[in-house]
């Protein structure tokens, strides 16, 4: 499960640190204590920044780094598409072999495919993504407004 890509993101995280934002959320994975504080900054529906700070395992750290790399600069609708695809992959219990289309959408995030085989770790990989979804809903409301829990 520890793909090179994941280890790289873990050791050299993208965009780590808290910067100015439109909303801030704090999510915790109660089963292992992983935590993230995450801020989003929007320019209209364009994601200007996702900044974060937290503690946790390599999977949750690398996942936040990948999220930053993938989403910053994207339009919300594209970002949602990426988030949903990532969720689908993570919930696949290792049974989904990412195809070219998926690889194109997820880029580095396909490296997490192997993690989906480990139920105890899926929540780690999803922590920052759920936080992003939640923070986005706070800024832009809409269909995402229901409270998401990462528990």
């Amino acid at each position, binding site marked *: 499960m520890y793909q090179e890509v994941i280890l790289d993101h873990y050791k050299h995280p993208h965009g780590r640190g808290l910067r100015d934002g439109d909303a801030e959320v704090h999510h*915790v994975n*109660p*089963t*292992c204590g992983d935590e993230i504080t995450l801020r989003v900054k929007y320019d209209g529906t364009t994601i200007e920044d996702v900044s974060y700070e937290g503690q946790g395992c390599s999977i949750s750290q690398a996942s936040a780094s990948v999220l930053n790399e993938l989403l910053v600069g994207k339009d919300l609708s594209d970002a949602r598409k990426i988030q949903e695809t990532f969720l689908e992959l993570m919930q696949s219990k290792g049974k989904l072999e990412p195809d070219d289309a998926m690889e194109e959408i997820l880029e580095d995030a396909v490296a997490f495919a192997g993690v989906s085989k*480990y*139920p*105890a*770790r899926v929540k780690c990989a999803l922590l920052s993504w759920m936080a992003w979804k939640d923070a986005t809903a706070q800024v832009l409301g809409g269909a995402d407004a229901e409270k998401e829990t990462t*528990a």
Partner: protein
Amino acid sequence: MTQLPGLLDTEALRKDFPILDRQVHDGQKLVYLDNAATSQKPRQVLDALSEYYERYNANVHRGVHVLAEEATALYEGARDKVAEFINAPSRDEVIFTKNASESLNLVANMLGWADEPYRVDSETEIVITEMEHHSNIVPWQLLAQRTGAKLKWFGLTDDGRLDLSNIDQVITEKTKIVSFVLVSNILGTQNPVEAIVRRAQEVGALVCVDASQAAPHMPLDVQALQADFVAFTGHKMCGPTGIGVLWGRQELLEDLPPFLGGGEMIETVSMHSSTYAPAPHKFEAGTPPIAQAVGLGAAIDYLNSIGMDKIFAHEHALTEYAVKRLLEVPDIRIIGPTTAEERGAAISFTLGDIHPHDVGQVLDEQGIAVRVGHHCARPVCLRYGIPATTRASFYLYSTPAEIDALVDGLEHVRNFFG
């Protein structure tokens, strides 16, 4: 050999149950007619238990090592099997307990500690019936004593059915919970769920169904029942001892407070306060009966491989035959319905004034295992003015020949004490 329509191929099935080959009292073939007390276990279930311990044993949840993940998958897989078996809308509605008694106590305690609108207190009423197993009486008596609620119940008709004639007086606007048995373990009676549920819904009372004697013997569909809680127990349905089930409607399980506190049922704990995991884990404190859940899952696979409708048909045919044959025995009095309609495969009776203990003992000397006593339903004995009954109860491996052996055995008992 007696041939009845609808029987299973017991000759093949019995090979799955090692204990049925046992001989007792120096060479008597075991005739096991005590299935309402507990069922025997097929090889498939014993193998699943051994395999679990020999290959996968670990504590469940939160482990990142292989064994912990495999054990968790097996344990949670058993939950899926139970959910499907009872047609639960969601697997998260299936709570593993240690037996049906714990399941019923869990319901009583949740309601005792609940907030409104569920809370049982001195302004409210609890309804049960006179044919309940002690496990569906005592928890409610305790709850009534401890909260000041009033305990009411449906009486019984002379032929062993619920007397619902006064249903509107028994279940009232004050009723918070109606808890009753689907199939009686002493009378065999199968109760009319719909009428009771309809009235309970009218007054906004919750309904708890004790399906301990139903789940092993007939298709069980919690959605069709329209109850709020359904309890049953693993050891009566080919599963191991030490495992029971409580099914509850999701909204209720979300709203109601926990019962036992400890590991597994928490979300986060500090010395000052704790929050709880979502159901079902909220109600599963401590290391669960892991191997036993796996064993129950294997039992469900086994039952499904035969088919619950076929099992029901088999037992129905046996019950019809047994009632007919038993009524040929002089001085016998069946306590409960004397036809096979709307009844399960447990038949209680008295034999003249020969005490059930003596009946049971002399049958035992012939290798025939029945249960004698009040069958944890003493109010039924009081109701019918008898100290105890003898009870024969059948399961999927029971045969007409065993019923013949019982009838012959009873003749012997009569001669012996005649």
